[in-house]
């Protein structure tokens, strides 16, 4: 692809500007509370926007355009029933309550609600997933620089690591959230521009529908719901597996998402950030899937049928990007970079938080001071970035399958994680050891069903059911914690007033 000097200038300015902005916003970090929770000083609008781009990376932009080409609007369900619904429920039922619990991480909450075994299990699972995924994100970034700017892969990975490392190490969560806010705006504008110029090329919305409908096997591309007997996305599986299990588990249990709302100024702002995120997500998925339909109308002859067994991904969006005029192309490429950098900074910051909060401080150095935790947290950010950059060279040729392997690994734990969070937050009768039993049974169900070739949405649903059933049965024969021990850990038992006052006073003093 040939880039104009204006486009190149925009991309380089964006890279340098975002790093400088992140470092400036994140100045004044003095301890691990500042580094990991931004001193609980973040406004709802920045947190909400940051949550959106932590979820949508450059890989999703390319992937969703491919999926839009192959399956149509049904893919928007991942953001509609899979995000808007759980996010709205979480906004009122869970997030203000978790904010008041005063935890840094979700495994920390699980450790206090159940026991340390459950805490360590989930901390290790999430840290492994995040650090493993870093190499894949580096490959995405490197490949983009190689093809767009003509840089070498090594230079591309190093530049990305240094820029992200600078503001994430210095500024912590605050720098991450404010740079994500800029990324969200650029991503939004970039997605609108692709849709706008693409639709103009097709001849408008009606022409798009006519052209797509004329192609074989695309009769349902403009429908969000597929029939119950659809082989890929039957609506009952989408509703139960995605809407009731995978979506809630991701938006309530994913450390990279939830950590932002823990950094909000107050429980009300944590709630508002979730509602704002849901509002953005009502339109964002259409902007990401629509390019797939536009690509289908314009490039079907070159790309071929989406249901072909020999399908290779990553061709739809690059084809569309070539339609963009000079200057606009730079903005869209900025959007790609925004997606990559926001993914990278979110994962690296959250992985460091998990390791310090759930492994280093409770098990390795129980008397570690705040300064020491800050130093360890910053060192881990650097170590994870170096690790991710190094492994990006190893997985470069097979990064698609590596990414899928890590996603598959995480999906085994989503059903049990949701069961542990829901039952733990809603019932005082659920016992400490039922958490571990639920985790084991849920994961076992998921692994068995996946190896049996079942649809991943059904695997998620039944692993959740298995975890819930085993937790209830175990709770009937084991001893629960007392109500005093559960104060602030179950929705119906608010924390002691002193803790709430202390958290709110700290906020007002700041």
């Amino acid at each position, binding site marked *: 692809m040939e880039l104009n000097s204006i486009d190149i200038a925009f991309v380089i300015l964006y890279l340098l500007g975002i790093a400088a902005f992140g470092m400036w916003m994140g100045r004044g970090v003095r301890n691990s509370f500042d580094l990991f929770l931004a001193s609980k000083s973040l406004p709802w609008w920045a947190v909400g926007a940051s949550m959106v781009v932590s979820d949508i990376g450059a890989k999703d932009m390319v992937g969703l355009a491919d999926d839009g080409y192959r399956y149509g*609007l049904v893919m928007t369900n991942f953001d*509609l*029933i899979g995000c*808007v*619904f759980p996010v*709205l*429920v979480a*906004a*009122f*039922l869970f997030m*203000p309550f978790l904010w008041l619990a005063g935890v840094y991480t979700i495994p920390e909450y699980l450790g206090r609600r159940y026991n340390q075994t459950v805490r360590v299990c989930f901390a290790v699972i999430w840290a492994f997933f995040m650090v493993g995924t870093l190499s894949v994100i580096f490959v995405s970034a490197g490949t983009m620089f190689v093809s767009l700017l003509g840089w070498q892969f090594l230079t591309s990975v190093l530049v990305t690591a240094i820029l992200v490392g600078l503001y994430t190490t210095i500024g912590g969560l605050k720098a991450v959230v404010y740079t994500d806010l800029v990324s969200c705006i650029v991503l939004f504008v970039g997605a609108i521009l692709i849709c706008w110029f693409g639709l103009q090329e097709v001849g408008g919305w009606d022409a798009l529908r006519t052209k797509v409908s004329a192609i074989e096997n695309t009769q349902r591309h*403009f*429908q*969000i*719901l*597929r*029939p*119950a007997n659809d082989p890929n996305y039957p*609506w*009952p599986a989408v*509703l139960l597996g995605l*809407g009731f299990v995978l979506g809630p588990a991701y938006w309530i249990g994913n450390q990279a998402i939830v950590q932002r709302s823990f950094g909000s100024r*107050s*429980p*009300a702002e944590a*709630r*508002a950030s979730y*509602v704002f995120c*849901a*509002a953005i997500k*009502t339109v964002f998925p259409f902007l990401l899937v629509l390019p797939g339909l536009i690509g289908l109308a314009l490039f079907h002859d070159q790309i071929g049928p989406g249901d072909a067994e020999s399908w290779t991904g990553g061709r739809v969006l690059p084809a569309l990007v070539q339609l963009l005029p000079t200057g606009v192309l730079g903005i869209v490429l900025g959007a790609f970079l925004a997606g990559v950098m926001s993914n990278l900074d979110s994962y690296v910051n959250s992985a460091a938080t998990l390791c310090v909060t759930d492994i280093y401080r409770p098990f390795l150095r129980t008397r570690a001071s705040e300064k020491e935790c800050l130093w360890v947290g910053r060192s881990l950010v650097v170590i994870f970035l170096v690790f991710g950059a190094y492994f990006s060279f190893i997985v470069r040729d097979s990064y698609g399958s590596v990414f899928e392997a890590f996603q598959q690994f995480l999906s085994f734990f989503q059903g049990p994680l949701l069961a542990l969070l829901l039952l733990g937050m809603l019932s005082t009768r659920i016992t400490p050891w039922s958490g571990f039993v639920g985790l084991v049974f849920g994961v076992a169900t998921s692994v068995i069903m996946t190896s049996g070739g079942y649809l991943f949405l059904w695997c998620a649903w039944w692993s959740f059911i298995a975890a819930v059933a085993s937790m209830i049965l175990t709770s009937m024969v084991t001893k629960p914690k007392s109500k005093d021990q559960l104060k602030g850990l179950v929705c119906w038992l608010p924390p002691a007033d002193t803790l709430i006052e202390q958290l*709110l006073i700290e906020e007002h003093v700041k």
Partner: protein
Amino acid sequence: MLNSIFLLAIQNENLIGRFAFMGVFAILIVWLILAPASLFRDNDSASPKPIPFWKSTKNWAIAVASFEMLTYWFLG
């Protein structure tokens, strides 16, 4: 009556799915309206002054859920 609903469901195979998805958001809206006020405090300081309706996260959540119902009705 039941026959006509049954016929409608058979003719439009996604109709049940569409109602199921809309029903999820409808239940959410009803819950948002009926749930205890303590869940919706938009003002963390104990100020008695009520906030304007457009600043209420509860109202925004109802608006977003209603928009989703319309999306599933028209595109489902």
